[in-house]
């Protein structure tokens, strides 16, 4: 979720939320405390898949959860309490659009009471000031607002929601007026990558504390829409270098986190900081996943918070133990010096591209599929963008990406 950084003299180490497991802030004793020491630090709660926007790079699965399958208020309240008790430190309330839940207030209250640092990740087109004020009173700590582009017309084409930009700007102003930190989320792809500089200006103008330059990651809807989204190698490199210069210039003014697209990388990203190591994700229907795309891996069983406790699932669920540590690895990961650093990259990407989740992430230059994957990305980026398959329930059942795995190099 965010970069690992070291502070100057080593007195204060900033770790990413998905890095080092840590223990709870809520008082725990004895055996529970020992278990807490293994607990994740971050919880992504996808409260609903309902969303007013239809972005073609949505990180939700292709099969969107129906409203009648969503967890009850009581279950989410219990999840928040359990999360605090087991040592989770931060909760990210997301979706879909989390404000589509009428009981978001109760969930925020429960999260805050459990001692969790509570982050609302919103599209901000349906949030009014009164509701935001109420959420802040209930203990909301941070708001992240996505902007589909800085040009309103293009943004509203990408999100398929007319009038979105003005509403987002209003909510962003309210957030800072109410004294809350604001993160501007900038999902970057070939249709807005020319505006990275203007995103930085926007974030400063809005008084944001943080900007997330989030190059689209190609899973789910984004995988399906890759040819509409993937920038060229040169565009990608230029934008990364530009952000790195700006980050230095804006030290102490704006924190810029960058998620880079790994199709053009040499080393894979340490996905989720390691499978089942520091992070868990709960779907609208209560399934607990090691990452939001984990359901794309066949053969994994995901337990539900309605059946088992969160701590039990974290420690004992088959899905969490499937790729924990390094024992599951094949070559070239197994004998690699970086295996404890990048954990072989992303299991879901290995699955999507090579049809075997235990393979090295093809983003790694050591993967025999790497050359093929880069060639595919370059060739898609060189052609005109394909039309968007918008993320909505109507496209959901029909949206089946071509699951033809690539051929490894000889």
């Amino acid at each position, binding site marked *: 979720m965010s970069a690992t950084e070291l502070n100057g003299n080593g007195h204060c180490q900033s*770790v990413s939320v998905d890095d080092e497991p840590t223990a709870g802030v809520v008082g725990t004793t004895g055996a529970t405390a020992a278990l807490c020491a293994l607990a994740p630090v971050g919880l992504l709660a996808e409260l609903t898949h309902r969303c007013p926007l239809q972005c073609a790079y949505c990180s939700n699965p292709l099969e969107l959860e129906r409203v009648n399958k969503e967890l009850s208020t009581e279950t989410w309240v219990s999840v928040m309490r359990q999360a605090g008790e087991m040592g989770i430190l931060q909760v990210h309330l997301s979706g879909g659009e989390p404000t589509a839940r009428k009981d978001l207030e109760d969930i925020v209250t429960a999260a805050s009471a459990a001692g969790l640092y509570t982050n609302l990740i919103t599209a901000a087109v349906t949030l009014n000031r009164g509701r935001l004020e109420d959420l802040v009173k209930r203990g909301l700590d941070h708001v992240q607002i996505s902007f589909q582009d800085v040009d309103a017309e293009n943004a509203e084409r990408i999100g398929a929601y007319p009038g979105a930009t003005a509403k987002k700007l209003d909510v962003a102003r309210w957030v800072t007026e109410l004294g809350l930190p604001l993160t501007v989320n900038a999902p970057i792809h070939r249709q807005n990558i020319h505006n990275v500089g203007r995103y930085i200006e926007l974030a400063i103008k809005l008084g944001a504390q943080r900007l997330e330059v989030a190059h689209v990651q190609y899973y789910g809807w984004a995988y399906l829409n890759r040819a509409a989204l993937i920038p060229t190698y040169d565009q990608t490199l230029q934008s990364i270098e530009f952000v790195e210069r700006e980050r230095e210039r804006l030290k102490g003014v704006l924190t810029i986190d960058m998620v880079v697209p790994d199709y053009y990388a040499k080393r894979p990203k340490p996905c989720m900081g390691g499978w089942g190591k520091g992070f868990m994700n709960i779907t609208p229907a209560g399934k607990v996943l090691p990452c939001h795309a984990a359901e794309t891996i066949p053969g994994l069983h995901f337990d539900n918070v309605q059946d088992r406790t969160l701590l039990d699932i974290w420690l004992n669920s088959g899905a969490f133990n499937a790729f924990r540590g390094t024992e599951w690895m094949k070559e070239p990961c197994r004998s690699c010096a970086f295996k404890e650093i990048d954990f072989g990259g992303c299991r879901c990407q290995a699955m999507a591209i090579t049809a075997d989740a235990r393979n090295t992430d093809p983003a790694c230059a050591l993967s025999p599929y790497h050359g093929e994957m880069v060639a595919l990305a370059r060739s898609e980026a060189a052609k005109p963008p394909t039309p968007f398959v918008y993320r909505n329930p109507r496209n959901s059942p029909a949206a089946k990406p071509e699951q033809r795995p690539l051929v490894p190099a000889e």
Partner: protein
Amino acid sequence: MNDAAPPARLIVGQETRPYLPPYLKLRHDAGRGRWVLLAPERILTPDQTAVAVLKLCDGKRIVEEIVEALAKEYSAPAEVIRTDVLDLLQGLADKGFIKG
């Protein structure tokens, strides 16, 4: 590149009155017996020295008063502590974790 004057980087000096912005939460991590500083999408694990400094960053004391208080508490020379405190606070300010 910006029309309006952008917010400037805080340069921490002896006269700065540092404080933690309200969105940072310094909490004791009971299970592990350590402190954590919770920030947007970040978790920092300050060591004992950093915690001692952060607890004194109340927006009332200037850096020099923080240095004096720590020098007294730890019976250490103020020059050594001053360098350490300035380094620490500048590092945190550059990440947006300390205002003044």
